[in-house]
């Protein structure tokens, strides 16, 4: 070892002579990585039931928060759709004449946050109401039209957020002659608040379950360290570095992670397929275009990479806790 290090430092040697052992070292290093990766994968296959159980535990733990997040993404899609169709209805005071209402309409239309204002005069409103409510007979008993003139305001694209509409609402409400302003945002705000709450819950759940995954993998790897104690002792005895001894276990953790990620993805696809029919029917009943969205390719990749990292982390925790304690001092008797 000391010899090869000196050789590399020695500037008098040509690049040709010094590169070849370095190259050789690198290729044997990567060769060893491949061998260890293959070997630890083979060990998992040799205990298929135990491995499958670990993969399933990990898959369930990962699928739960991801499913919740997918649901949230779908819900946010709904609220975004509704915001774009939100319109503000301004009921004018009863004493406002049609001319005044028309001036008011033009005033509101000047606002840059507004794309369109439609004036519905009280007679049209009454006719529409009469047609749609089925209260024709009852309305005939009224002496005069109880309905005010109404402005239907369509907000511009930029102010179609909950906040933007709220400000617009305040502005219109402050105008002379406007009696009452209404926008059906209440349920949307409730939905938003709910999705926000759910979002936080999903993250908290994700963190907790990620910790659980790390612990599960850590424990599994701890058992495999115990099983291979002799091998670790011998490897340390013949001069294996800590990195060399850790490597197979880190790969084991990563393989557990990969399997867990794939199981999580399968579970998600399966439940999506199972739920999508009823969800569409339900959404149809509410005449909504709501649909559950699955994972995109990026999402699948991110899920699996996260799973591999968690598995690796779990293995690393176990290795740090247990492997460094195994010292060949105990191999030789007193």
């Amino acid at each position, binding site marked *: *070892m*000391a010899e090869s290090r000196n050789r590399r430092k020695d500037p008098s040697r040509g690049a040709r002579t010094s590169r070849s052992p370095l190259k*050789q*070292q690198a*290729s*044997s*290093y990567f*060769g*060893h990585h491949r061998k260890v990766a293959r070997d630890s994968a083979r060990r998992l296959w040799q205990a298929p039931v135990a491995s499958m159980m670990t993969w399933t535990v990990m898959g369930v733990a990962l699928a739960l928060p991801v499913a919740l997040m997918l649901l949230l993404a779908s819900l946010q899609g709904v609220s975004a759709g509704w915001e774009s169709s939100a319109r503000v209805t301004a009921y004018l005071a009863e004493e406002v004449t049609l001319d005044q209402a028309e001036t008011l309409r033009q005033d509101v239309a000047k606002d840059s946050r507004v794309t369109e204002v439609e004036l519905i005069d009280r007679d049209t409103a009454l006719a529409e109401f009469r047609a749609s409510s089925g209260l024709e007979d009852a309305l005939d008993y009224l002496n005069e039209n109880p309905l005010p003139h109404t402005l239907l305001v369509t907000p511009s694209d930029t102010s179609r957020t909950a906040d933007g509409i709220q400000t617009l609402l305040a502005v219109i409400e402050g105008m002379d002659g406007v009696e009452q302003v209404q926008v059906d945002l209440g349920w949307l705000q409730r939905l938003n608040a709910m999705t926000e709450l759910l979002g936080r819950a999903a993250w908290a759940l994700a963190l907790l379950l990620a910790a659980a995954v790390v612990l599960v993998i850590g424990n599994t790897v701890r058992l495999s360290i115990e099983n291979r104690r*002799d*091998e670790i*002792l*011998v*490897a*340390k*005895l*013949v*001069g*294996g*570095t*800590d990195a*060399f001894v850790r490597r197979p276990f880190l790969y084991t953790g990563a393989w557990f992670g990969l399997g867990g990620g794939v199981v999580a993805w399968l579970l998600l696809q399966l439940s999506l397929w199972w739920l999508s029919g009823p969800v569409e029917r339900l959404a149809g009943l509410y005449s909504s275009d709501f649909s559950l969205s699955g994972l995109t390719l990026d999402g699948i990749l991110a899920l699996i990479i996260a799973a591999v990292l968690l598995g690796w982390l779990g293995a690393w925790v176990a290795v740090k806790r247990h492997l460094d304690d195994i*010292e*060949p*001092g105990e*191999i*030789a*008797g*007193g």
Partner: protein
Amino acid sequence: MIEFQQVTKRYDSDHTALRQVNFGLERGELAFLTGHSGAGKSTLLKLVMVMERPSAGEVVVGGQVLSRLPRRQVPYIRRHIGVVFQNHHLLFDRTVFDNVAMPLEVMGTPARDIGRRVRAALDKVGLLSKEKMNPMQLSGGEQQRVGIARAVVNKPPVLLADEPTGNLDPQLSADIMGLFAEFSQVGVTVLIASHDIALINELGRRTLTLDQGRLVSGGGGLHG
């Protein structure tokens, strides 16, 4: 090659395993280390392997002062020291070949060199025909020889053996000692801990005798 300078090893206040041990072994020298059990033989070997650190004094192996060696460097020192144990510590989940190949794999030796060098080591101990067997199928003497092949496969300058003939009959023991003598002839420094006095006397080599942690005979060496 191995040098102990005033080495003391104290495990706790009332147990001192080695007291001011002084000796040196030249390159290619073969010596026995003897004494009652508990006299400090294993402790001495552990100090050479850097499984333990001395409480006082210096242990020098191949010019390296081990007491100042950082923990990260320990594996690299161990690659220069072959060790043979009484119960050989072979792994029964792999073949004889894979057992012997371990020191080379640890060093990152290229695969084709591994094959060549493992077979050379197995040939040396006369087990070339059994490379594909599981060590469990071998006899005690053969297992011990596999252990020796593993200890010498990377041609270490130092070879330590802890009771290598403990479980073997006299004929097998003599064979194994013969192997150690051959290694010392090609320049390997060999130190064998043993209490098989008859065998030691028969070979007539330098003998370091420990008694309650003190080196009572066979000391000196490199610097007189």
